[in-house]
């Protein structure tokens, strides 16, 4: 029964993704297309956080660091070394993943609040490094708080839509893979009882490291795409802790460690802020705060998380 449900959900997901891919041909409004792109962007970003923290239970408070690294790698590659966008994009993901690998080795040995603090500190440290590096070493690399102006792409929103959609699609497929692989069971086992998992032969450190670096790879890609889209980056903007908060809240609202959680949480929060923000400019943040509190009180494991528990579903 459960395996059939899994397959049905996967087929629905694939069908919806295919349909979404054709949206730029039907959506005439550039604004609407931007809004849809922003929703898909946040689904992916929240998915990256869920991939690591949702499944392992290791609360990462610094994922924005890989988003920021991705932004800076793309910006430096494009402006300083004249590398075209797509190779820069790949480089962003790669460098983010490599840095995550080396940062993960010591930090993923920490547990609970210590891990959260370490990741948060790393994100803040990277912000400071990008701010101070040039002044300290008398070079022009990160360009400190002056920021970097990227080349104006001249592309319309459909270009960025087609950059973001495949990345988000792969992020979500990775979730499916996590849900249906030994690697995924390993991650869930870490969440349930890490010591027991270790005794049972799960290489917990390697599993966490794989999840952490994979998540960083995708975050790097998103950072690069946003930098090219906005055309200007500063350390304060791309390493902004608000981005971390947003991806955590989206995942919590949708349901941590679930396949549909980031999709539902990111769509719900983005659309609700869009709808209320334009109608109630003065009060919308209070309203959104209220909605989040009520949702979490009624559905403590998030929208999908609670549904999963109540309906005893294995995978959604």
């Amino acid at each position: 029964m459960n395996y059939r449900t899994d397959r049905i959900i996967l087929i629905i997901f694939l069908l919806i993704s295919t349909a979404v891919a054709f949206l730029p041909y039907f959506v005439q409004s550039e604004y609407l297309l931007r809004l849809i792109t922003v929703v898909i962007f946040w689904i992916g970003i929240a998915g990256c956080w869920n991939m690591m923290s949702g499944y392992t239970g290791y609360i990462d408070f610094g994922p924005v660091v890989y988003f920021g690294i991705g932004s800076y790698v793309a910006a430096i590659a494009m402006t300083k070394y004249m590398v075209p966008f797509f190779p820069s994009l790949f480089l962003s993901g790669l460098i983010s993943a490599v840095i995550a690998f080396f940062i993960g080795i010591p930090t993923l040995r920490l547990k609970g609040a210590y891990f959260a603090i370490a990741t948060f500190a790393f994100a803040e440290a990277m912000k400071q490094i990008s701010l101070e590096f040039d002044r300290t070493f008398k070079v022009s690399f990160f360009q400190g708080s002056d920021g970097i102006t990227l080349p104006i792409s001249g592309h319309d929103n459909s270009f960025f839509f087609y950059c973001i959609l495949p990345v988000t699609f792969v992020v979500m497929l990775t979730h499916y893979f996590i849900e249906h692989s030994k690697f995924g069971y390993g991650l869930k086992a870490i969440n349930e009882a890490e010591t027991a998992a270790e005794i049972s032969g799960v290489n917990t450190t390697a599993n966490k490291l794989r999840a952490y670096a994979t998540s960083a790879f995708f975050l790097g890609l998103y950072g690069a795409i946003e930098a090219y889209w906005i055309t200007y980056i500063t350390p304060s903007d791309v390493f902004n802790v608000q981005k971390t908060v947003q991806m955590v809240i989206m995942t919590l609202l949708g349901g941590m460690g679930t396949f549909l959680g980031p999709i539902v949480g990111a769509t719900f929060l983005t659309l609700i802020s869009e709808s209320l923000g334009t109608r109630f400019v003065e009060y919308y943040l209070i309203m959104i705060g209220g909605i989040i509190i009520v949702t979490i009180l009624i559905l403590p494991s998030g929208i999908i998380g609670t549904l999963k528990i109540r309906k005893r579903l294995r995978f959604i």
Partner: protein
Amino acid sequence: MFLKSFRLVFVLLLIGLLSVGFAWGEQKKAWKIGVAVSLTGVFGKDGSLVKDAYTLWQETVNSHGGVNGASVEIIFYDDKSDPATTAKLTEQLIVSDKVDLLLGGFGSSQLFAASPVAEKYQYPLISGGASSNKLFDRGFKYYFSTLGKATEEVRGCVDIFTAVNPKPKTAAIVGADILFTSLACEGYKKYCESNGIEVIHHELFPMALQDYNSLLMKVKNKNPDILLVGSHLLVAMKTIKAMKEIDFNPKAVAFSYGPTVPKFVEDLKGDANYVIAASEWTPNMPYSGKVFGKASEFNQLYLKRFSRSPDYVEAAAAGGAVAQQIVIEELGLKPPLNKENRIKIMEALHKDKFETFYGKIEFGADGANEAHPPVAVQIQSGKLENVFPLEFAEAKILYPFKPWKER
């Protein structure tokens, strides 16, 4: 007979209803102006000031019959101090709300994100709340700023020391590590060098810094003659509080932004005295023009509407709205505007010179206002007094700074 009278009444009623309908239809053709501005987040406070300025402009214009007979309606959206949101909202205003024109919000990062969108759709975007030099280096035709470039804005704060005796020999420069304030620090450094003042300490710190005492203790130990701070409102307030706590008494302290916001004096009271600040406008400047009349009259309107005086950023924002209005009136345009109309507005903004309550506005090829002299003000007995340029000065600079323990 009865039927005839009934028909007459019916016809009259129909005419009446139609004319009301037409009048309503006419009235509905208002100017729709879109503003994506930070009302929450780091720049929430500063963005709210810009919103007030545009609101006053809207109310004043509407009370005088609107622009070319059409009233003004402004749509404000909150970008949460997030550049990506600014870009999205700017596109929403243009594409979804179909606004006729845009006005700029607050913050260089925000305007960096909004301006490519405005450029793409060929919407002129005049801002009064961003002045980072890089904004003008991109070859955009549709971006304009009523403020001068950030490095130039602080010139008055350094040049003023040529008029004091004894002239300071050393300076310490500190500033928040965000674009505008770091550029202000660059400007301080440039003008210190040109005025023969040696910079003995130069440090940028995180915008979210809490412990200002340690930072300023380092500076105090170097004993500079003057302290120059690249600041926003909160940075300026925290700096003054920390200076008092550690009893740091340089001969003068100057800020790039903050002390001109009324809250600075309201909160710090007597501690705000002697503080020097960069400005681009004060109500006593001898400027006048359409819509608001004299600078002092703009101040009076502000006092009446918001029970406070405007800051120079608010004046710059309203000045930009007035410049755009003058162009629309000269071109005789009426809403709704099309692409050709907006191209004409952009061309006229580049070509024309505007005399306004905010002073002369003359946009260069890069969109920066080239006609505005930097001003320095000092808080004296709780009031902002214009102390530089000397020809417009309403008071002589109080120098040196009175030590905290003697106040």
